[in-house]
């Protein structure tokens, strides 16, 4: 009920603030319950202040800033109750190189701290280079997928394969 949701909000919000700072390399952010006094009816708003900028609602940030902020929220919920596996399907697509590096730093740290195993689907060569191992999915025969273990050089070629 309400009590559990309030407690979850407090935990997620505290993780969220820390994760935002790690992903943005500074700044600050917080969650707010809006539109109703009862947490079970309220909406979740996000107020974010990228380093050196004024605080803004999520909707006024840039595309990449929004994606990075939403990623911090997802990880804040994840860290509240870490699962044995975490799968991320192209979450790095809108990010620039330095944000991709910080995201991979965070993933490497979380893999250490929580024993969680991470699967990351990506087209980004920087992310590929940060993985412990890589699998390539190919369609040598059109319409039929094959999974092969690859090294980084092959992976980059694979991303170019028709």
């Amino acid at each position, binding site marked *: 009920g309400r009590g559990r949701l309030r407690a979850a909000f407090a935990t997620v919000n505290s993780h969220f603030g820390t994760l935002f700072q790690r992903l943005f390399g500074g700044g600050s952010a917080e969650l707010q319950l809006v*539109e109703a006094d009862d947490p079970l009816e309220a*909406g979740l708003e996000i107020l974010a202040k990228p380093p050196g900028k004024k605080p803004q609602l999520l909707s006024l940030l840039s595309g990449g800033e929004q994606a990075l902020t939403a990623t911090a929220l997802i990880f804040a919920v994840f860290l509240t*109750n870490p699962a044995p596996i975490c799968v991320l399907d192209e979450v790095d697509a809108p990010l620039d190189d330095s944000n991709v590096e910080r995201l991979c730093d965070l993933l490497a740290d979380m893999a250490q701290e929580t024993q969680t195993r991470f699967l990351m689907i990506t087209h980004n060569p920087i992310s590929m280079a940060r993985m412990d191992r890589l699998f390539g999915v190919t369609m040598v025969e059109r319409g039929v997928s094959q999974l092969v273990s690859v090294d980084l050089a092959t992976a980059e070629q694979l991303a170019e394969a028709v």
Partner: protein
Amino acid sequence: MKFERLRLAGFKTFVEPTELVIAPGLTGVVGPNGCGKSNLVEALRWVMGETSSKSLRGGGMDDVIFGGSTTRPERNHAEVSIRISEPPDDMPAHLAGSDHIEIARKIVREQGSTYRMNGREVRARDVQILFADAASGARSPSMVRQGQIGEIIAAKPQHRRRILEDAA
């Protein structure tokens, strides 16, 4: 609980038997557009008890069975299994004390799907509870689908609150 290995055959574009070892740390999955990367993630969600075919980008649940290509006929069944180690304590009786558990789900066209744990048939709920107790499962916040980040950004605040409920 630790996830060790995923095996699939006949599931979407993975017609041939395929095995993905899930080792500790960060495992990257790469490949051209349309080659089957997201299908792999859906196989994992499916074996953990996903009941909505729409959330697997399909019409009916039979859409997870290989539908044929220009060179191969469609298949009639699909099977996915996941091997886990260090299972939680409160397992069903026939599994108590096992180090490893193999959870399998099989579907036959127009006949629905069945679940097994270490070879014995179980209910969908048994599988769903096993994973939910480990903060995992098909709808877990740790399974971030392609485009889901965009959905969170576009969602109205009322909808976004649902994410918190996962954490409660």
